[in-house]
């Protein structure tokens, strides 16, 4: 799993001249586009389906359950691009990218957990059970879990946790040990607890209200897990500081680190080039979050792959 670097310079034409600072990733981290290596993740479909439920699960946070065989059969880390409202002629006209929080393959359902932050998510929160929702999905490259892995570390913050929760189910199914750090602004909105509980994973829940989410506070716990050799792969989403921390601690221990990125999207399919990874080049295009991501491999800066 080697390849094109986002900040490589001229050597790989497609991403030549890209600038990591555009991404505001910590300068200590560099990203790598994963090779698919013959693995074909489920392809996107156009899902026009019924909302089964859409309930507030925490302050400002909602869970929308929809019926869809295609979405229910996505892989961890893939996402959907959801149209918030029902009219096409009026605001908002762009769909919103949303990770799948949980699949139920048997029941053919997929759950989205979202935080109301702007007009689109507010419109989503207004939808009711029985309404028709339109989704393009599943899209994106999933998180890889290697066959030789027997423990994984999952580190997420805020709604970033939603991109990671499907890993919990999958790891559980494969009898892989789960270690998670889930962070949020306050205790009420730490997501993912239900998933950890179901999978009997090990987790540290931290938040800003008591300072427990400070990097200095979570570092020892993460450090210990990594140094103990209990995990072979690590997955991060939702916080620059946590990405930088995990990447720094994981590299010396040969623990592979993956991040799921966000970007403004329009098509979600890879044709509009809206979601280029914040990078730009003098001579060519940078990778797309929807098609080449949202999952990327992380390395400490200076590492050449």
């Amino acid at each position, binding site marked *: 799993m080697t390849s094109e670097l986002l900040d490589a310079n001229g050597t790989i*034409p*497609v991403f030549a*001249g890209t600038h990591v600072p*555009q*991404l505001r990733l910590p300068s200590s981290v560099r990203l790598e586009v994963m090779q698919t290596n013959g693995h074909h993740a489920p*392809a*996107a*479909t*156009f*899902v*026009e*389906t019924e909302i089964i439920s859409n309930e507030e699960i925490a302050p400002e946070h909602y869970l929308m359950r929809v019926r869809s065989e295609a979405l229910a059969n996505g892989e961890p880390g893939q996402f959907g691009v959801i*149209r918030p409202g*029902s*009219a*096409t*002629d*009026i*605001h*908002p*006209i*762009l*769909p919103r990218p949303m990770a799948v929080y949980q699949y139920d393959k048997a029941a053919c359902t997929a759950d989205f957990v979202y935080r109301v932050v702007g*007009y*689109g998510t507010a419109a989503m929160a207004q939808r009711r059970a029985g309404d028709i929702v*339109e989704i*393009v999905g599943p899209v994106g490259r999933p998180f890889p879990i290697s066959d030789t892995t027997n423990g994984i570390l999952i580190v997420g913050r805020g709604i970033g946790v939603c991109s990671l929760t499907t890993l919990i189910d999958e790891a559980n199914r494969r009898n892989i040990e789960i270690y998670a750090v889930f962070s949020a602004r306050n205790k009420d909105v730490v997501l993912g607890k239900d998933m950890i509980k179901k999978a009997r994973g090990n987790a540290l829940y931290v938040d800003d209200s008591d300072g427990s989410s400070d990097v200095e506070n979570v570092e020892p716990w993460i450090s210990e897990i990594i140094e103990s050799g209990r995990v072979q792969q690590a997955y991060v989403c939702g916080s620059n500081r946590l990405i930088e921390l995990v990447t720094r601690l994981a590299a010396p221990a040969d623990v592979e680190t993956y991040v799921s990125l966000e*970007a*403004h*999207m*329009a*098509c979600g*399919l*890879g*044709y*509009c*080039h*809206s*979601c*280029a*990874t*914040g*990078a*730009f*080049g*003098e*001579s*060519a*295009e*940078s990778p797309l979050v929807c*098609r080449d991501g949202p999952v990327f491999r992380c390395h400490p800066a200076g590492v050449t792959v």
Partner: protein
Amino acid sequence: MAVQDTETDSRLGVDLGAGLTLKNPVMPASGCFGPEMGTLFDLGQLGALVPKTIFYGERAGNPAPRTAESPAGMLNSIGIPSRGVEHFLTELLPEYTKYDSPVIVSIGGLGIEEYDRLAERLNGEPGVAGLEVNISCPNLEAGGMEIGASPANVERVLRGVSDRFDGPVIAKLTPNITSIADIAKASEQGGATAISAINTLSGMVIDVDNQRTVTGTMTGGVSGPAIRPIAVRMVWQVCSAVSLPVVGIGGITSAKDALEFILAGATAVAVGTANFTRPTTMLDVIEGLKTYVETHHLSSIDDVRGQLEEGMRVAIEPPRPATPVSGRAG
């Protein structure tokens, strides 16, 4: 639910001139479409396929973020990243020619000569049913807006392309000008066989808390329903100025919207932003047009082209549409 396929209806066939006939008047707008949509439905149902504008050589796009929303519209500052014409011909074109719809290749240039080179290179290439000459992208440092705003340059670009390419040449006009009629005339003069209008309107959205623009560039292009009234007006002006067939573009989300352009004089229409909103919009438009020809007893959709009268006039009982055109919201 699977996407419903549409059936071909001969009453929807239109002629874009220079031998370019379409099974229906509905195609995607350049930059708002890709072969990736083929996983969602059979692209062969469309009147034509229009890939994103290509340049002769490789070029990068703009810094992110590249898209944002504006009221009933969106702003984009993609900036036309391109891997160049050779990559297009070997890697991308085959993805389009798989389908039973003519491929209209959109070409751009950083300078006048680039258009010439592209036309030359694409001439005779199998699978290239026609060219759309994008002289209107407002995001380019050079070329784009500047070329498209000057009748002399426009004429020169179209002359260069039509001299070198033996087939339909569609000039795609910018709306960021005083008189679109003049630019349309210059295109006709230069040898364009059709016109498409409009490209995006130059715009700017600011995040007032961060005191920065919301896209990675100062300005972007506004598209979507918000610009439709402006686009319809411009298409009407173009149709009044030249006798070429016109592809109407701008904020089309339904058959009703498409019919606004056709009544204003357009022969065909292209759907851009609405492909993001609802990827099956183009199929919805085709279906809606079928309903329209049916309920209005037309032998061809072309029968209503340009059939527009002024002023609805106030009536105490406004005439209720006998057969409302199905279309979402509004």
